């Protein structure tokens, strides 16, 4: 009988250079490199898991769903903001080391974990909830066209990849940031919502939409493919018109 041949699955070694910071022992963040054996189906998150589980248990990062839904693991991978769980290693140039850093513009707490408080604060300020004064007995109706008007911005998972890719946010931490504007857009253009004017007024702030310089970093960064810069431009236009 012919021998049963089990195909071997190709693996490769990649080097990850991770930006690390331990608030209890370090005064400055530092780079540390790790070699890991990976497969074509592995993602950056798998590499981080492998490091944490097999090499250095102290490596600290956030992740929850591991499937691009929860928005926990936005990080700077080779200089671009990505979700570690949606970035396949084989899509990166593995002939060179892969650089992994925390997202920029928010205070680093430990290794890849940043303090998201300023980000959520800006989000809360735009009233991210439906405001409707009527008390209907059944659901509020909306035409497919009305629903499509803000479809793109409903997809946000609040990962902060956009806001922390914005150079204005890096240097001027007061700026509301793309994510807050995206989530305002989601309600401003919702036909059932009654508070568009208030949100437009909030974003007409000194640190509101006019800080945006159309860099497109946010659109490039968004793991949900939201056209973030376009959404910001639409909010600017709405403020100029004085209504949604």
């Amino acid at each position: 009988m012919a021998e049963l041949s089990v195909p071997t699955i190709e693996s490769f070694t990649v080097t990850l250079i991770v930006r690390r910071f331990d608030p209890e022992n370090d005064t400055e963040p530092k780079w540390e490199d790790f070699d890991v054996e990976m497969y074509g189906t592995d993602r950056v998150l798998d590499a981080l898991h492998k490091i944490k589980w097999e090499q250095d248990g102290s490596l600290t990062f956030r992740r929850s769903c591991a499937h691009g839904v929860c928005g926990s693991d936005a990080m700077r991978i080779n200089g671009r903001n990505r979700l570690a769980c949606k970035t396949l290693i084989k899509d990166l140039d593995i002939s060179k080391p892969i650089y992994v850093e925390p997202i920029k513009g928010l205070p680093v707490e430990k290794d890849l974990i940043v303090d998201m408080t300023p980000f959520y604060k800006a989000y809360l300020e735009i009233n991210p909830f439906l405001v409707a004064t009527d008390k209907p007995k059944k659901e509020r109706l909306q035409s497919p066209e009305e629903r499509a008007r803000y479809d793109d911005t409903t997809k946000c998972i609040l990962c902060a990849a956009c806001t922390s890719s914005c150079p204005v946010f890096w240097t001027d931490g007061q700026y509301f940031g793309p994510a807050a504007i995206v989530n305002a857009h989601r309600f401003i253009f919702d036909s059932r919502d009654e508070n568009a004017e208030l949100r437009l007024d909030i974003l007409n702030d000194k640190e509101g939409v006019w800080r945006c310089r159309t860099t497109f970093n946010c659109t490039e960064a968004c793991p949900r493919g939201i056209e973030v810069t376009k959404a910001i431009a639409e909010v600017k236009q709405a403020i100029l018109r004085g209504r949604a």
Partner: protein
Amino acid sequence: MSVTIEVPNRPRTRKQANWEKYGWLFMRVSGPLLIVLIFTHLVVNLVLGDGIKAIDFAFVAGKWADPFWQVWDLAMLWLALIHGTNGMRTIVNDYAGQVKVRRALTTTLWAVCALLILLGTLVIFTFDPCPAGASAELLASFCPAQ
């Protein structure tokens, strides 16, 4: 068991009246105007006619004797300076975190802008290539002998 979620109520305190909307609009209106103004200016001065060789004191004096070019240069002066200063103010807002530093830099910017606009406007409208009473050796060759 049911959980009651209170109506979220977060009064906003940060918002102040501001001119950012008009600043943003101004940059977009003045930009395209500057394209026309600056490139026409460059072509007329450096390309048409004798080209770059034509430029001398008499060339400038000739242009400023014409109200059309006076208004043209005035528009270019005002728009470019306000546009440039407002652009610099944006960059100051990016990088200067402390309110005092911001205010000092912005005030300096607008003071310099106002001074340059004032001086430039004065020159455009009071320019006289052959001022009366100037000593003969300082006058341009095309001035009538006095």
